[in-house]
């Protein structure tokens, strides 16, 4: 980070090579849109470049700082009126080969996608940090600038709500 603060672009490139994929995935986990998540990830690294001088390693790791930037940018974007419609869940490729399994899995995936999209943005961020990024409760809380208990509370509300919504959507789908 000291090298980036001294405007060493190779240091930024090194960090991007290491973290860009994860950064896009975190943004996409919150935004549920691949195009917007790339925008957010790019903006996050532009900020890393511009704000590198203000990074203080005594206050936390670089990944925590980066996660916080990505979470804040993603939530800000969700709070603005969105120009693009939510992308179809079918965009994500499935590795399964069996037709029946694929059909059931596709149905479930669509239900989870819809249920996730309906969650409040902070609950969605908690799911993305804990489940998609595999962060611990403590690291997830730090990324959202929350206490551990508050993060866990978001997580439990998100999981309960997801379970209920998915059950309703799957039942509706099977009735049709």
């Amino acid at each position, binding site marked *: 980070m000291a090298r980036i603060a001294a405007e060493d672009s190779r240091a930024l490139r090194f960090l*991007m090579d290491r973290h860009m994929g994860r950064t896009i*995935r975190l943004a996409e986990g919150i935004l549920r849109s691949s195009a917007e998540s*790339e925008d957010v990830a790019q903006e996050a690294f532009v900020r890393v470049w511009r704000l590198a001088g203000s990074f203080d390693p005594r206050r936390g790791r670089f990944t925590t700082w980066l996660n916080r930037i990505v979470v804040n940018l993603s939530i800000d974007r969700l709070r603005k009126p969105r120009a693009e419609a939510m992308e179809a869940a079918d965009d994500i490729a499935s590795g399964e080969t069996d037709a029946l399994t694929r059909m059931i*899995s596709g149905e479930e995936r669509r239900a989870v996608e819809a249920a996730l999209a309906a969650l409040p943005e902070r609950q969605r961020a908690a799911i993305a940090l804990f489940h998609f990024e595999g962060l611990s409760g403590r690291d997830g809380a730090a990324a959202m600038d929350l206490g551990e208990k508050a993060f866990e509370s978001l*997580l*439990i509300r998100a*999981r309960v709500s997801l379970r209920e919504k998915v059950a309703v959507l799957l039942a509706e789908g099977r009735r049709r």
Partner: protein
Amino acid sequence: MKLDEFRDRAQRFGGDIGRWPERNRLAAKALAEASPAAAAALAEACALDRLIELARPEVAPERVDRAIGNVGRRLARPVRRAWWLRLMPVLAPATSFACAAVIGVALGLAQPVLPTRQDGAEVLVSLVLDGPPLPRGWFY
């Protein structure tokens, strides 16, 4: 660990006990093996984990490369600012001073020289402060 606490942890952190707080793990594993109700709660949490995993975004390498390239292009672009923005360090204090002067003059002109209606106390204050010197011995 009680069953209620076990259920709470499973709902909160999912079906992988390895991801629960370290202080709970040993007791939770023991309870999951001993109690069918705990095992059922764990299975239910695992089912939800599996569903959530279906929505995990996959990021193809070309998207990563494109994003890295775009950041490079954005940072290579010189920051262009409008000519009037470059003058802001001079314009801002000059404009503030001019505005203050205009407001001051306008307020001064708008202020009535003499009040149109005064009650007794205001007349007295006006006489003392604005009028000619009072004759000696008038007040004391």
